[in-house]
């Protein structure tokens, strides 16, 4: 394979091995008021006053690195995709991240790679770029750097990825020209190549080092600047909250950063929660799953799917990879949109929110948390520390559905989550929750009551559908009419039933994969 030969000849390992890069990072004057990170192997020391600037603005306007494009500014098109070593000090993979949703203040100690770094001065290119070029996977070319970076992040593991996983990895990238076919071809070609390189590696004496492992991160600290604070411990956070009254908590930032850029939160001090290790814990113990509030959804989801395999489809279409790489469960809960995204699922899993204020904890059921549209129980200085979820029980059937105009990366019109425990065909416990059917995510308690204690059969479901019809008061908006939401809610109940009783596929996603 000529591509592989060339790849090996140009010794990408030298370019990308970040251990050497980290080592040659020039020593700089250390100060807590500047933000230090690495961009394409070069140390950056950025004035803390740029903390509220997006990485995209920094790249294009400050550094004149124009390979990273602005397509939408809301994390929906992927033209600004970059790779960042994201998940904490233990992790060594680059993740695809939208630069338009990333504040410079959240980059301390991170390593950022942009498209410019993948082509050297001799114009030799990373295998990802070569594959895209060989497959003619660009027309107008504006989205191409974004696809390059998503595939770059996927490259270390692409050899083992299914077609669907590849599409998922590209779900945050829009292309308006090609129809995606040549881009998918390029990704499949990379998958084949990766396999061949892996076998090459095992047979050759001189091992080829993969270019994509960032290696150990060099710790860097950014305490904050006017309008931006980044606490490193819960104690520090507590102290900050007593000093700053008008604050905006930012975790992944996927919801607030575009609004921040439009000037919505000019008066508020950003409190970055992403650097707090104490909020990023994730454990499965006894009968509970404990999720730190700022744990990225991608990590939360992998644990959830492990516990509840039927959640695979819900998780698959929940959001694009670059979004779930940074978005958090706590952020989702605190945003509290009527559709609710994960909230119906959390209701179904008996979620308990662990909230902290002034050093004191309180525990609140997710069912009691919301007061209305985007209104909830959190008081001033209070934040969510963790979310506790139930683990599966024996004889339990659990499903969650997301319904939207588009399969990938779309806000849902309706979310439905269902969980039942059967004892000898009788319903002994039941949870039914919806998003998009009221001004806030809701438990359908009357419908649950209608089913509890009954035999699990079609007539019980039909009766429950009747009750549900009376129980819901859906909203009407551009995502769906109230009538549609009502119909779908009832149909999801039926779908859940059919999925557990009928042998025929009920999912447009899964049925295709079975073939």
């Amino acid at each position: 394979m000529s591509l592989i030969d060339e790849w090996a000849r140009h010794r990408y390992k030298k370019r990308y091995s970040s251990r050497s890069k980290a080592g040659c990072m020039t020593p700089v004057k250390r100060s807590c008021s500047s933000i230090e990170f690495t961009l394409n192997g070069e140390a950056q020391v950025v004035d803390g006053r740029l903390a509220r600037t997006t990485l995209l603005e920094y790249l294009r306007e400050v550094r004149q690195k124009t390979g990273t494009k602005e397509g939408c500014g809301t994390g929906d098109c992927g033209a600004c995709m970059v790779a960042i070593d994201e998940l904490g000090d233990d992790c060594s993979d680059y993740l695809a991240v939208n630069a338009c949703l990333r504040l410079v203040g959240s980059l301390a100690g991170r390593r950022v790679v942009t498209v410019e770094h993948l082509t050297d001065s001799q114009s030799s290119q990373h295998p990802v770029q070569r594959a895209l070029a060989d497959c003619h996977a660009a027309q107008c070319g504006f989205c191409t750097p974004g696809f390059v970076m998503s595939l770059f992040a996927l490259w270390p593991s692409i050899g083992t990825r299914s077609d669907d996983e590849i599409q998922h990895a590209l779900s945050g990238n829009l292309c308006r020209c090609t129809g995606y076919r040549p881009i998918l071809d390029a990704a499949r070609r990379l998958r084949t190549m990766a396999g061949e390189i892996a076998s090459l590696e095992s047979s050759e004496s001189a091992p080829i080092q993969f270019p994509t492992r960032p290696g150990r991160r060099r710790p860097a600290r950014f305490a904050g600047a006017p309008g931006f604070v980044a606490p490193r411990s819960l104690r520090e956070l507590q102290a900050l909250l007593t000093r700053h009254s008008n604050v905006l908590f930012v975790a992944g930032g996927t919801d607030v950063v575009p609004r921040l850029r439009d000037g919505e939160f000019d008066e508020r001090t950003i409190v970055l929660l992403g650097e707090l290790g104490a909020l990023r814990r994730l454990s499965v113990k006894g009968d509970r799953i404990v999720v730190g509030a700022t744990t990225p959804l991608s990590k939360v989801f992998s644990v959830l799917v492990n516990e509840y395999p039927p959640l695979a489809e819900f998780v698959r279409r929940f959001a694009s990879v670059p979004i779930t790489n940074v978005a958090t469960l706590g952020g989702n809960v605190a945003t509290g949109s009527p559709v609710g995204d994960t909230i119906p699922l959390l209701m179904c899993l008996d979620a308990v929110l662990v909230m902290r204020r002034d050093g004191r904890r309180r525990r609140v059921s997710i069912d009691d948390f919301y007061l209305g549209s985007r209104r909830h129980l959190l008081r001033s200085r209070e934040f969510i520390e963790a979310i506790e979820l139930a683990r599966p029980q024996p004889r339990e059937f659990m499903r969650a559905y997301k319904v939207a105009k588009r399969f990938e990366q779309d806000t849902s019109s309706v979310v439905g989550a269902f969980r039942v425990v059967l004892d000898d065909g009788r319903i002994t416990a039941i949870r039914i929750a919806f998003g998009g059917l009221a001004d806030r995510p809701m438990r359908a308690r009357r419908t649950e009551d209608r089913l509890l204690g009954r035999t699990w059969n079609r007539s019980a479901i039909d009766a429950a559908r009747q009750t549900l019809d009376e129980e819901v008061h859906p909203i009407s908006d551009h995502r769906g009419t109230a009538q549609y939401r009502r119909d779908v809610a009832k149909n999801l109940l039926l779908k859940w039933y059919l999925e557990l009783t009928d042998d025929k596929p009920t999912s447009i996603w899964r049925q295709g994969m079975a073939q």
Partner: protein
Amino acid sequence: MIKMFTSGRALYVDDAPRMSGMLHAAIGTSAHAHARIASMDLSAVRTAPGVLALLTAADVPGLNDHGPVEADDPIFASDVVEYIGQSVFAVVADSVAAARGAVALASIEYEVLDPTLDIDTALARGRFLSPSVRVVRGDPAGALAHAPRHLSGTLRIGGQEHLYLEGQVAIAIPEEDESLRIVCSTQHPSEVQRLVARACGLKAHDVRVECPRLGGGFGGKETQASLFACIAALGARATGRAVKLRLNRRQDFAITGKRHDFRIDYQAGFGDDGRLHALKIISSSRCGRSADLSIAVNTRALLHFDNAYYLENVEIVSHRLRTHTASNTAFRGFGAPQAILAIEHVLDDVARAVALDPVTVRRRNFYSSAPRDTTHYGMKVEDNVVERLVDELEQSSRYQARRKEASAFNATHRVLKRGVALTPVKFGISFTQTHLNQAGALVNVYTDGTVRVNHGGVEMGQGLHAKVARVVAAEFGIDVAQVRPTPADTDKVPNAPPTAASASSDLNGKAAAQAARAIRDRLANYLASREDTSPAAIEFRDDRAWYGNDSVRFADLVADAYQARISLSATGFYRTPLVHFDPSTCTGRPFFYFVYGAAVAEVTVDVLTGETRLERVDILQDAGRSIDPTIDQGQIEGAFLQGAGWLTSEELVWDDVGRLVTDGPDRYKIPTSFDWPRTFDVRIVDWNENAQDTIFRSKGIGEPPIALAAAVFLAIKDAIAGPSCGPVALHAPATPVEVLRAVRAVAERDRIWGDNERTGAQTESSG
């Protein structure tokens, strides 16, 4: 070229190295769909930090208008505003943030007037943009009355946002002696030149427009880019400094026009054999607040209601409606995809009514030999290959077998239903405004034998530059790597038409070939006289010029010719022959030729949620003798998926006061890679060449395949209908909401799903 894209080194307008002292502009827009501006207090805007200039209607030295056809598009509204997003004023400041921040400080008082927002209201109120056009052939009323079978209905077809990944952007740079250089993302540099000059009170020769490349256009930068270039230019004139205007995505959605949405009311009379006896169509389209290109768009629609079918007795009435929404504009296909979808929708219901296979019904209506070979506008269809295309596709896609498999699947599946549909396309190539069918090119050969070619076309991903370079290389018999195409520039090729109408390779390719040939002839004459042979005996191939068995390297010949003082630069010009069209009577030969294609789409529909998935597509496309099959395949696939998006997930929603709610890719959903079907077979037929003398006998391919997406829409209808034989009232886009509504309607009407168990999904969705 492609390496530049993958490396991120390709420079778009916004990527140009920063100019020192460059300023940034932002636009203040109307908050109401229809209102009189009672008062406007911009003092806080003027004094905001970083602001250097404020521009309103009063600050336009020339004509306050950017309308491409009619002068009805003010750059800045001054009295009445007519859509939410209409430009009212602009700010020039020392940073993007300062400019955008200052805009928010404006205080404008409106006297709100009653808006007309949609087609139905505009029809009821008689708000016509221009007189309606009526085309009649035969005796539609009589034939309709006597037809054995009848069908009537209404089809609503939604619009479409271009969502070019690169948003609108323009830079204006003041140069010496009052002149201006504009660098902007436009499909029509010559028009930007004309309109900028007109707005600034300059002459055309004072303004130079360059377009490095487009990050997507799709028609959205054919006329819509002018406003932004004009504002940047006015800002540059006001401040004497370079000004950049780049929209954010929400403003881009709000300000710019979209594909026209249509309401089609139809009456069809037909026989039991499925042959149409008569067809009456009332076509009503929403044009928005001004003319823009709406007349031409509706004309092209009018010329495509036949698609591939002979309409013996036909009446088409075309209403063009003025509304208080953004002025709708060109979008790939230019009205034709809407018309093609309409006739395919009708034939689909005809087939269902007579219980025949839809392809059989289509075949019975195809254009064939005289007299069934003349369109309703009087042009003979001479190059018809649709029958052969459909025959081959029916075989290669296993259409009939898959229809049966889908039925079998549907009989045993309660939640998921399959649908299969085949649709053909016949698409006319040429601008219907005949004068636009011209092009110029400039070819320069340098003394080392390398070549630069410039032409009036803009590169926007469609591969135009690559095709033209290939044409020039072929004329000189040299490797294509020796030819460098250069960005569109009004200084190099003046008075060019827009890069549009799928005709740019035809037009610019021919013009460039002519320019190259002029130089080649000079070289041949020179060589013939030097080697004492005849110019006709000289052949250019393999990087050499051959005379008998002897040859000279092309580069050496060029160097010698230079020494001999032979001109190595030439312009070329081309105008499309044969075409003529009278829009007032809708007769003539508007098209040089037709492009044909056919597609089979297979979908799965979830009848519990209305969600759909495109499972498989088979396309057979005529591209004449393709100049570059890889480029053409890219155009076919990209256009097809763009069309599929238009007809499924891409929904434009306005609220009650006329605000576009789906105003960004977070709410407006174009296809992702998941939406490309897992199984596909896209092929360009190898047996056809253009009957007309086009460049290399190729055909235009940019637009025609978007209409193939009608197959996706009809496949969804097929899945919804199942064995039902009544018409399926499905409107486009077939969003989950729309699909579930149609599922309910069919179930309630037919009760075809029988016993309670099997109705499950269907009837209970109504309970």
